[in-house]
């Protein structure tokens, strides 16, 4: 299969995944939930006499990241089981669609959906901030982009976990744990300085394998004028590509 044909099929599957998400009731409820939470954050910020703009932006950014993450985790961890139960995977894989292409389409579809969630919830947040007569902080958009990158990395790993785990719950928990671990990977640096020998090698391996999600917590760095380094962006792409490559290999061995 040529590159152009492969890209076309990836695009078809990704767009279909996105469309399915938009039409699912779960997604609609999710949007309502997001709006209610953002509205609640506006009420909460009224309790803060000073720095209202900052408090409101922080709460919004936290909610946007959680929304994207929860959607990705819930969707991906149950995707395989759901597709087997509904037999939709049969209709795709019985066609001349290579499995790695199918996986790329599915992953891209989830990433497009999370980008869409980030976009919609950001618009909601901006509306809430503007309604309060405040300015949108300069770091807001960079921080949303960082939250999306974190979700994209976790999405790629969540697919990988869904292939190795025996249940949806395990895949969900493993992906959630990786999200937590990803935020403490940067703490390995000081530990490595003190360690030596096997301990050092183990810590070093962990620092490479576990994605450092703090690189994408861009709220503070963007405020200081350093939104996202090329290195951090490259690292995100490498983690996504590595997780995808292992997932594609596991998917090629999977029976349905």
């Amino acid at each position: 299969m040529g590159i152009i044909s492969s890209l076309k099929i990836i695009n078809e599957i990704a767009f279909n995944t996105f469309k399915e998400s938009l039409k699912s009731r779960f997604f609609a409820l999710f949007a309502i939930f997001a709006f209610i939470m953002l509205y609640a954050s506006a009420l909460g910020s009224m309790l803060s006499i000073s720095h209202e703009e900052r408090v409101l932006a922080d709460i919004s950014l936290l909610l946007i990241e959680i929304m994207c993450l929860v959607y990705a985790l819930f969707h991906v961890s149950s995707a395989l089981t759901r597709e087997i139960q509904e037999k939709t995977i049969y209709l795709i894989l019985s066609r001349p669609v290579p499995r790695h292409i199918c996986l790329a389409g599915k992953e891209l579809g989830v990433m497009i959906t999370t980008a869409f969630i980030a976009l919609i919830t950001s618009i909601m947040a901006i509306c809430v901030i503007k309604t309060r007569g405040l300015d949108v902080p300069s770091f807001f958009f960079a921080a949303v982009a960082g939250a999306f990158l974190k979700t994209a990395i976790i999405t790629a790993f969540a697919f990988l976990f869904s292939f190795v785990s025996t249940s949806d719950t395990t895949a969900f928990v493993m992906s959630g744990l990786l999200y937590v671990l990803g935020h403490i990977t940067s703490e390995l640096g000081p530990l490595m300085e003190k360690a030596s020998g096997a301990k050092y090698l183990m810590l070093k391996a962990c620092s490479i394998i576990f994605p450092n999600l703090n690189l994408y917590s861009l709220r503070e760095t963007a405020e200081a004028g350093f939104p996202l380094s090329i290195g951090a962006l490259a690292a995100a792409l490498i983690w996504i590509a590595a997780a995808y490559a292992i997932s594609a290999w596991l998917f090629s061995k999977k029976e349905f």
Partner: protein
Amino acid sequence: MSRNSVCFSAAGTAAENDIPAISFHNVEKKYKINRLFGTAELTAFKDLSFDIMKGETAGLLGLNGAGKTTIMKLIAGLIFCNEGKVEIFGKSPLKPEAKSLIGFLPELPYFPPNEKPLNVLKYYGKLSGLKEPYLSARANEALEITGLKPNQEKKIGQFSKGMLQRLGLAQALMHKPKILILDEPVSGLDPIAIRDFRNILSAEAANGTTILLSSHSISEVEKICGRVLIMKNGRLARTVQKEDWEKDGGLEEIFINEVSDKGREK
């Protein structure tokens, strides 16, 4: 109307006419089952060999767990055999060239309820490599063939079970496959829908399409198929030709004899 590159002519190449459409050669399939401590293996079948020739309409009969769906999944490339060889016109079913020859209808597949049937067919058509304007024309043709044309403006959520099964068949027919693999195609359908299904399959068979279907409905298999493979406990118990069951008082009698304990004693 020009055919897409992934489709092949109904007549087939000379090489394709000489080799079986579907070939199982000493195939063994085992499943791994998770246990409390480790895993166990369950043999679905062993040393299974049979050929389905081009243009043949064959049926798979067997009790639950006999291995019918496993055979279909092996042909569709959804699972892999442990030993032996499965071939589609001499090619591995895992290869895209073989998959483009197959149209697969699993038992009760899901379709998105908010979509219209034409969009679903176009989606699967694109995955089969079809391109516009052939894609739209073929999707409409598939709706016509399966009798869904009058309902094309309805959303799939409003479809009855029979209409969903027709849509399942339509997606399998989208790329004009040379082989149709149908898992329980008439399960749960009313008599009129079953008759319509039979007519569609007869038309496909008349066009030279090879059909392999599994069913619990012996009377339907009897009406549609020219040959039947009876599976029992993971082995091919018997192959019966149409003339045999016409001569021996019907397929049901032969099937019951083969799969019952009485048959085992024989």
